């Protein structure tokens, strides 16, 4: 049986993303004590080899916190900081560090921690809204180009499915001119479960 996800279902999923992303952005806002604006979620629902059409600025180097999601619905969560923005965030969180080597380590550690806090915040919102049990792994930080990172994650998803479901929300912090991306890759196997949970809630 083959069944495509319809527009109504996609809207429902986007709405769920909105809830998760807004909790994450609130957490970020409190962490750095600055106003954080959110973009409208952008969705990718397609076969994995068409991913390149979805990726913007693919050659850009980003510092990314990546977390695996376990529990009732699986997936992968990303927080992407473009080159330079992680330094601004670190400055706010830890203060100015002169030593170059030490600073790089602190930046990685800060991004890791931001990833942990934001993932926790958004997952708590998801769990509460969907009445699901969701957990996240420790966060891992990698610095690489956007397309290397995205392709590698999608390859992991591709082991079990030819399709990928990705949601992207941008966090914009105007005050310090920083834009970060929050990406959520939903395990295609979990999509049905999430939609069922939404349906159960409104029955």
């Amino acid at each position: 049986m083959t069944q495509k996800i319809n527009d109504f279902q996609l809207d429902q999923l986007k709405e769920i993303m909105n809830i998760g992303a807004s909790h994450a952005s609130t957490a970020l806002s409190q962490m750095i004590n600055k106003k954080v604006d959110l973009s409208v979620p952008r969705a990718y629902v397609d076969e994995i080899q068409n991913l390149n059409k979805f990726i913007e600025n693919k050659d850009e180097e980003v510092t990314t916190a990546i977390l695996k999601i376990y529990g009732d619905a699986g997936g992968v969560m990303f927080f992407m900081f473009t080159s330079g923005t992680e330094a601004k965030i670190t400055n706010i969180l830890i203060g100015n560090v002169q030593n170059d080597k030490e600073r790089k380590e602190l930046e990685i550690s800060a991004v890791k921690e931001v990833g942990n806090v934001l993932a926790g915040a958004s997952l708590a919102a998801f769990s509460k809204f969907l009445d699901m049990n969701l957990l996240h792994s420790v966060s891992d930080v990698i610095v690489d180009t956007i397309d290397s990172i995205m392709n590698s994650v999608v390859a992991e998803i591709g082991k079990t499915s030819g399709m990928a479901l990705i949601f992207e929300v941008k966090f914009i912090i105007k005050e310090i001119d920083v834009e970060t991306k929050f990406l959520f890759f939903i395990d295609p196997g979990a999509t049905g479960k999430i939609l069922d949970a939404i349906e159960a809630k409104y029955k």
Partner: protein
Amino acid sequence: MMENTISINTGEMAVAKGQITIETSGIGSCVFVCLHDNINKVGGAVHAMLPTRVAPKKSDTIVFEESDGVGKYVDEALVKLVDDVVRAGGKKENLRAKIVGGSSMFKVFDNSKIGNDNVKAAEKILSLLNVDVKAESTGGHVGRSAKFNIGNGVVEVMVRM
């Protein structure tokens, strides 16, 4: 210079003859396999994502319709690529392969090792097809991009630092 360059994305392949460069970026756990016939100056390359095709699990999943996507899988892609290069004027016995990519990018996925599986799959299928692997730039934890010059068979690999 630019008009002699073919850019391929993940899951795509290209075959060319003469002074042409095939380039790709964003090779993480994926592999970029280049085949070259140095005598006839014919070559081809593929940017494949997974070792082999797996049937989607039938469960409570929403199953999506899938097109063939032959360049996505290392095994299927290489069989087709060898075929295409021969059809473009290459001789199978002249073919030499170069493999780029197959790094393991994330610690959180450590138990899966797709990158390594991709390289193994490429080596295995190439040995079945009797194509020698001449050089490799694989493994590690970094993304790569590569340029393959069909005129002389040189593969230039850029590693992000």
